[in-house]
């Protein structure tokens, strides 16, 4: 029997529905997530199925409801909060990086904060500079937080389930451009643990590591490079904290070449940490210095003509790989 196929959005919706159904401690909070089913419809139908005590609309008060989620988490709920666009977390940053991230530590383990902050990130849909970032970097320097990204429907389901099951706060970054993408879906497959990267394409000549929308771009680049005789391995890093450096090192020990692609400016992205770690552990295996691609060092421009050029794409990734390999 072939796998069912669902969209990334549907996979997330299934994950939330299954979590709500299995564990009465799970509650959802966010702006317009209940009656309206969410700005991007990720929570569609959940209010009708689980009722207003489980699926809660909130006022426009990110500090208020993120903090309330921390309070709920402290007493055994498992709140999942939607941040409609990633940048909106900027008005409530303190509740994530200080309150949620540190309460286990500050209380010496008396309490913990099993909550998930679902953050809708990503460029490509013309939302402009204040609604298009992925914002992983806002969180990666905060011990106590885990930072998870999903690039496929299958991972969207399983990683969100793992995030909800995690006893500690998880920032779960979704990419709005992926919501309509379809992919295979096996909800009963083995869980995808947090902290494990995935080799999504095997190859011998070059390792490309990416996350979120950059995974599909890298895979497309790999296809076109294959036609030119370049055999690329693509790794979806999936979790930024904790980061699965082992999988990347293992790959690089075979390919000897590394290109990291992220949807953030390199000045503050996660690719630097990954490259530094790989270099420290696989220096001798590397034939070339690892290369990185990221968003231009600018806010995301609105105009369609500009936005697409500000972010790495299959074409620019393939071009960079070709240059790297000296072809």
């Amino acid at each position: 029997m072939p796998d069912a196929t669902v969209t990334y959005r549907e996979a997330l919706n299934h994950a939330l529905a299954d979590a709500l159904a299995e564990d009465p401690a799970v509650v959802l909070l966010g702006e317009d997530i209940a009656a309206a089913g969410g700005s991007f419809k990720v929570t569609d139908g959940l209010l009708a199925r689980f009722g207003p005590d489980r699926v809660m609309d909130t006022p426009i008060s990110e500090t208020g409801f993120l903090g309330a989620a921390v309070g709920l988490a402290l007493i055994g709920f498992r709140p999942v909060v939607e941040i409609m666009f990633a940048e909106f977390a900027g008005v409530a940053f303190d509740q994530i990086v200080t309150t949620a991230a540190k309460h286990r530590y500050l209380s010496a383990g008396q309490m913990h904060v099993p909550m998930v902050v679902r953050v809708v990130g990503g460029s490509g849909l013309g939302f402009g500079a204040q609604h298009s970032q992925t914002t992983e970097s806002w969180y990666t320097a905060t011990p106590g937080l885990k930072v998870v990204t999903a690039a496929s429907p299958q991972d969207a389901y399983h990683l969100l389930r793992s995030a909800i099951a995690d006893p500690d706060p998880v920032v779960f970054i979704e990419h709005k451009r992926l919501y309509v993408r379809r992919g295979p879906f096996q909800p009963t497959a083995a869980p995808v643990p947090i902290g494990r990267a995935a080799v999504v394409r095997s190859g011998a000549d070059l390792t490309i590591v990416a996350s979120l929308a950059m995974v599909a771009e890298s895979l497309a680049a790999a296809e076109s490079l294959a036609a030119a005789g370049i055999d690329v391995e693509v790794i979806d890093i999936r979790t930024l904290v904790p980061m699965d450096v082992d999988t990347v090192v293992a790959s690089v020990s075979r390919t000897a070449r590394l290109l990291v692609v992220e949807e953030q400016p390199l000045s503050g992205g996660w690719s630097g940490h990954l490259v530094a770690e790989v270099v420290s552990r696989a220096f001798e295996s590397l034939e070339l210095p690892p290369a990185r691609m990221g968003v231009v060092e600018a806010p995301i421009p609105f105009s369609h003509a500009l936005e697409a050029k500000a972010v790495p794409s299959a074409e620019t990734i393939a071009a960079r790989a070709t240059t790297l390999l000296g072809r």
Partner: protein
Amino acid sequence: MTPAALPAEPAQLLEMYRSMVQIRTFEDTVQKLYEKALVHGSTHLCQGQEAVAVGWAAALTPDDYTSYTYRGHGHALARGMSPEAAFAEILGRSTGVNRGKGGSMHLTDARLGLMGCFAIVGSGLPVAVGLGRGAQLRRETRVSVTFFGDGASNIGAFHESLNLAAIWKAPVIFVCENNLYGEYSRINLTTTVDDIAVRATAYAMPSQIVDGNDVQAVYQAAQTVVERARTGGGPTLVECKTYRQRGHSRSDAGAYRPPEEVTSWLARDPLIITRRQLLDSGSVTSADIAAVDDSVATAIANAAAAAEQAPWPDLAEITRDVHA
């Protein structure tokens, strides 16, 4: 001494009407451009709220500062932004007010005192306090007027801004356009007060409730409040009761709104109210009104057509204006 607020003379009211029709036609055209797949991203239109933008603009001088939100087209046009440059921005073209880098949510023209659209709810309010504080520090008579929604009154920035303006007694006017909805949520689901204006009590700040669909009422209230701010009387919170005739953004049909509510507010369309006021004045005829409607229709159609032909921005724009 504060001069009394005056009603607009018929000629001025006709001009206000023209401005309102311009906004309405502009917004309707944006929706059509969106349906023709020419607009990327999101748009947040203000049909039904034109009287707020126009009534306030009429009470301001070109030196005054305004700031507003993603639902800002009306405020930009009311203070004189070129419709062609506004369309071009929304279409992402090089002739746009922000050379295509901002888009619908960020129409800005500093020369006209249009200091910015802020697309993060509430984030424009503290900036507006700074603009007013600056005028105050320079002993100028400028005022800073900032527009935001009913939903925005639930966010922390609202609270901090009103308190700060009050303690500084800065010339800042907080205009809440209460259109009953924040996105798809009716106001009574997100706050327990009926009138946002009561929130001024928390800062010992004067407040006022105005019929936001009656441009005359808005204009008169605006004059009084602006004059108070200009003459050292400090900030005011003004709530303009109005209605968002369309959905929250481009693709939202607004189906969650009770039909009777929609009908009753459409009957109080600000254009209808102003047309009645014009005719009642005796010095404006239906023909005058029709002439305005026609000339606006032509001008907006031409502006949109020109914007559609405008070139895309140069790729070098991507990294221009990040730093000096």
